[in-house]
């Protein structure tokens, strides 16, 4: 008999040994006090979807106001609160918790661990979040209103926020604590809980990208915490960190903020790279092209993300040498990113491709994220950035990276793994309708914003000159369509979880690789109580 455990052997092994379906029975025991990685993952995903709809509603207010020139619906200050809150909610409330939710569900199952390494801390990491966001959103109902200086919170403008600013800062502190604890848990799990034979270079790409993301989070969330703490003391305790009149330097805030802020962009997108690297091979029926180069490219992107921050602030008046350094360092990121894009294309090349909904979203990601990447290269050129800075071109750029980038990858991940999580198949017809309406409307929404920016329309304003009217109207129509389309997504997920009669098999798809597919659908409440023996033929990239 061969000494190698085969893929099927492992599947049988776990059906045989997993008797771990002992869920707590009470509602509070199951959800409030849970230490189970699957339940905590579900909580994160529900929270993230709620925040996605909340942040989306704010985006609808913004696009409704911008539908026509002039002030129609909201006061300018409230408009600015909407742009600020939309960003904070989407970044910290929707995208980051969604990735943590998927990490909770998938990382233990992908590395053959019974749970996260620190389950009680895992519970705490999640339950901090609803309190943080309740506090943040409550500022909208306070006398002084919510924060309105943009998510970047530049002083001195942000210091004009009233007493509600203390709530904003404390909410950000809590989000940071939650993210750091979540990251520590993920790193501790990956380093210590892998099944025998699951070497680092056998780990699935989603695990690798999350490992690197977790290190980024631990490195930069304390920097954000430091920056907002200094804002807090400047506002309430008469310090002068960023107050020029007291000998402080407002530009120093920008340096500190963007030292956090640029790696934050990669925190939002690296797990997406991992998801796409899982999905494309399955539906191309080929191994991932260039697995190890994908790992090294991810690490290189993470390293470079620490040395490019000042490209967000070319116009503050840096020395020319500094501007050139940040320009070239930024352009350098296109090399490892290009490695990834070409590897994805090579993975699909001559594959037996089929176009189920996860694959459609993954291909949409590759095409549209690349557009966002290319406009990023344009912004990296210092001289050109003086024209683009603070215009809608920047808005178009980062929304191409984050919406058809991170959000499409999240949609792809949901369609790919939801049948595994729930044991039910979603409606493929409605999934495809969701994809095509999203893909069309997201371009109608964001592509015209490139032209608006190039024509000089500034960002973060509720009113604009009449020459920008046509493109704004088109963009708003795209926005309303994209917003409405996401209701389909909610419907598809709800139907899959509660109503679907089509049961998913253990594999769900045609021969996907990875340990999670060796478990039943849905997996037992406590999976891999017996660690699997992992061999090279069980990981796709080793074929």
């Amino acid at each position, binding site marked *: 008999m061969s000494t190698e455990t085969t893929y099927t052997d492992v599947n049988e092994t776990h059906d045989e040994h997993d008797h771990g379906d002992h869920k707590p029975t009470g509602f509070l025991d199951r959800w409030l006090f849970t230490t189970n990685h699957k339940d905590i993952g579900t909580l994160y995903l529900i929270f993230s979807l709620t925040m996605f709809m909340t942040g989306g509603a704010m985006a609808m207010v913004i696009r409704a106001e911008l539908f026509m020139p002039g002030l129609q619906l909201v006061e300018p200050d409230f408009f600015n609160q909407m742009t600020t809150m939309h960003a904070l909610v989407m970044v910290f409330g929707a995208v980051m918790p969604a990735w943590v939710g998927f990490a909770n569900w998938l990382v233990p199952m992908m590395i053959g661990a019974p749970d996260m*390494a620190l389950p009680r*801390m895992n519970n705490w990491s999640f339950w901090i979040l609803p309190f943080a966001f309740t506090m943040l959103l409550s500022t909208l109902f306070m006398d002084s209103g919510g924060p309105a200086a943009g998510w970047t919170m530049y002083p001195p403008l942000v210091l004009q926020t009233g007493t509600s600013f203390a709530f904003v800062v404390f909410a950000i502190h809590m989000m940071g604590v939650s993210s750091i604890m979540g990251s520590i848990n993920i*790193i*501790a799990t990956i380093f*210590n809980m892998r099944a025998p034979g699951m070497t680092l270079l056998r780990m699935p790409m989603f695990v690798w990208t999350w490992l690197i993301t977790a290190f980024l989070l631990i490195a930069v969330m304390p920097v954000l915490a*430091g920056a907002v703490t200094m804002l807090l003391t400047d506002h309430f305790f008469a310090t002068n960190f960023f107050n020029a009149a007291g000998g402080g330097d407002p530009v120093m805030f920008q340096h500190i903020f963007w030292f956090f802020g640029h790696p934050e962009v990669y925190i939002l997108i690296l797990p997406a790279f991992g998801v796409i690297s899982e999905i494309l091979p399955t539906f191309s029926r080929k191994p991932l092209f260039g697995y190890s180069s994908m790992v090294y490219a991810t690490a290189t992107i993470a390293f470079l993300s620490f040395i490019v921050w000042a490209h967000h602030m070319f116009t503050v008046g840096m020395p020319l040498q500094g501007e050139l350094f940040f320009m070239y360092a930024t352009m350098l990121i296109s090399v490892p990113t290009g490695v990834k894009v070409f590897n994805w294309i090579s993975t699909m090349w001559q594959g037996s491709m089929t176009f189920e909904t996860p694959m459609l979203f993954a291909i949409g990601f590759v095409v549209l994220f690349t557009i966002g990447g290319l406009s990023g290269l344009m912004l990296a050129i210092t001289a050109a950035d003086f024209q683009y800075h603070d215009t809608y071109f920047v808005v178009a750029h980062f929304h191409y990276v984050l919406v058809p980038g991170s959000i499409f990858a999240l949609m792809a991940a949901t369609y790919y793994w939801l049948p595994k999580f729930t044991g039910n198949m979603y409606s493929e017809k409605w999934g495809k309708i969701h994809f095509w309406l999203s893909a069309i409307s997201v371009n109608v929404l964001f592509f015209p914003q490139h032209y608006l920016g190039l024509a000089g329309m500034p960002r973060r304003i509720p009113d604009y000159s009449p020459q920008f009217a046509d493109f704004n109207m088109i963009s708003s129509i795209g926005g309303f369509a994209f917003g409405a389309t996401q209701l389909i997504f909610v419907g598809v997920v709800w139907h899959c979880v509660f109503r679907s009669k089509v049961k998913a098999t253990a594999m769900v798809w045609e021969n996907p690789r990875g340990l999670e597919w060796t478990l039943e659908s849905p997996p037992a409440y406590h999976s891999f109580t017996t660690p699997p023996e992992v061999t090279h033929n069980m990981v796709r990239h080793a074929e």
Partner: protein
Amino acid sequence: MNNDPQANELKRKRAQAVRTAWVLGFIAVAIFVTFIGSAIFGR
């Protein structure tokens, strides 16, 4: 004493994970203190 080798192995892994967590937590706090400290003393 628990003689189940699998349970013992899991316990050992969890203990190691707690050590990893302490190191990472210390790094996070050190970064926070360094940034605020350098803003105070570095000027």
